């Protein structure tokens, strides 16, 4: 499974004059589920949406490269990007209520998207729209509703249906359940998991809640202060060769029923977006910090699938 769908290399993004992403790298292979976890303000959405050039003003890309399905996205113009968007890669936004147009029905949203991608036959569009609703267990009459009439969970399902309309190779889920309550969250997660298994698309699942990813993702990338500090298979996370921040994150999780453990929050505060140091940004809060942490920490490979940006864990191997 070495077919790489998305390859983000050393991406740097700024909002106006404030640098927010200081060189982040990520690789997504065909059919895999990559979780991306980080605190609010760590730059998770910026990383993926910025890479795909989906961010609006005042975001600007200041460095790096992004290859999607063999094509460099930074070489494309607006028309080229529109060919990639929705066909090859699509997005499920964080809050569907804000993303959907309150003036239009759900059916109009679906119709708009299909028309924009060359599906001219009205009957064909109608059929696909009903299929799309069925895919997420929504009745066809949902198509006649306006966004505000639907519940949060229903709106999120609409967003998922829209994202899968053209059967893209990669779907980005940007905190799809953050705005929902726990019960609905469970339902949405199960649906995403089922759809991914059934359709086989690669998925990037962005969240601030690492516990959601532990049983769902194949690999998990951890983002801290605008840099990716670890990428590892879900099972390998938190072990002795994990980044201190990841260990801290897992230790701060509320203990599950029957678990003999207390949650321990990480001491200190994460740096504000825009603050950057040449060395490891986590060093001030790390119990194992040493003077060597002030040097730049590159993501070093422990194994083919496990990379860590910490000299203590990864040793001096390049």
């Amino acid at each position, binding site marked *: 499974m070495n077919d790489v769908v998305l390859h983000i290399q050393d991406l740097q993004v700024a909002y106006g004059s404030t640098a927010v992403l200081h060189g982040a790298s990520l690789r997504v292979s065909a059919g895999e589920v990559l979780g991306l976890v980080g605190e609010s303000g760590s730059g998770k959405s910026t990383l993926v949406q910025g890479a795909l*050039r989906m961010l609006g003003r005042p975001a600007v*890309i200041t460095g790096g490269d992004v290859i999607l399905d063999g094509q460099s996205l930074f070489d494309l113009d*607006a028309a080229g990007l529109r060919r990639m968007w929705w066909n090859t890669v699509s997005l499920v936004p964080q809050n569907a209520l804000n993303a959907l147009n309150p003036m239009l029905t759900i059916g109009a949203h679906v119709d708009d998207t299909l028309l924009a991608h060359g599906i001219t036959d009205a009957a064909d569009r109608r059929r696909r729209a009903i299929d799309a609703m069925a895919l997420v267990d929504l009745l066809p009459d949902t198509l006649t509703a306006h966004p505000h009439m639907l519940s949060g969970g229903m709106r999120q399902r609409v967003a998922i249906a829209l994202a899968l309309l053209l059967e893209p190779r990669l779907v980005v889920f940007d905190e799809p359940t953050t705005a929902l309550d726990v019960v609905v969250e469970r339902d949405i997660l199960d649906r995403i998991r089922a759809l991914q298994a059934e359709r086989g698309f690669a998925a990037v699942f962005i969240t601030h809640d690492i516990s959601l990813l532990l049983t769902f993702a194949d690999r998990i990338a951890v983002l801290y202060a605008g840099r990716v500090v670890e990428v590892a298979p879900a099972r390998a996370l938190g072990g002795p060769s994990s980044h201190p921040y990841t260990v801290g994150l897992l230790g701060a999780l509320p203990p599950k029923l029957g678990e003999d453990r207390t949650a321990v929050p990480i001491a200190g505060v994460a740096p504000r977006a825009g603050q950057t140091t040449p060395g490891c940004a986590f060093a001030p809060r790390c119990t194992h910090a040493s003077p060597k942490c002030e040097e730049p920490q590159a993501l070093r490979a422990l194994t083919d699938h496990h990379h860590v940006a910490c000299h203590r864990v990864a040793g001096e191997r390049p």
Partner: protein
Amino acid sequence: MMRALWENPQARAGLVVFGAMLAVALVGPFLVADPDAFVARPLSPPSMDHLLGTTGQGQDVLAQTVVGARTTLGLGVLVGLLVVAIGSVVGGLAGYFGGKVDELLSLLINVSLVLPGLPLMVVLAAYLPAGPGSMAAVLVVTGWAWNARVVRSQVLSLRKRDFVDAAIVAGESPLRVLVVEILPNMASLLGGAVIGATTYAIGAQVGLEFLGLGDLSAITWGTNLYWATNDSALLTGSWWTFVPTGAAIALTGFALALLNFGLDGVTNPALAAGAGTGAPGPQPTPVRRSP
């Protein structure tokens, strides 16, 4: 924030020009001839003796323009501040206390907004004794409600924020919460409101005086224009009795508008002039590598 305003080119231009007008209004009258005096043949065009010529009553136009600035600008700024003050108090109380208080005050505000201001203005101006006090009263009575509505909705939304609840729980009195917690967050809104109210005050003043409803013996920009038309400026082609005052009013209004644009740009960078490339509609994230 003052510094950010100064760095914004539009705001800076507006401040400089308006400041210059205020300076002229304050100091100018000491430097020019007596605007009431008969100085030369009426309706004589600009010359070396009288840079802007004379009016239909033989008075120096330059002097009248400069002296007129004092009353018009003075009253304009004063009324602007008053209108915002009153509107803010009423709107602030309505937004802060909510409930019955809000319902009652909102009713008052909405009814005042919906009653026609111009006829009311004309009637009041016609029947009150001429003078700056009456003019101020007329402008304030017809103008306070707009601000009240704007302030009310802003206070309403700020009221729900966490830091306000925290202050209330900590035992701060309502007045303190309003002044210390809420108002500072509305600085730019209030700044814009004062600019808008001042513009309205100057414009309405000039309009009423032009109709002959102000104090005709006073020297203001509005009365200057009233007398110019009364003395058939247009028919005799005596543009110099008419143009300088109009230009002065326009310059003031334009300066205030620029200041407003700049203020918008500072508080909401998306609105700042200079953003954008002229490309149509939403665009993909641009790639701009530093060399």
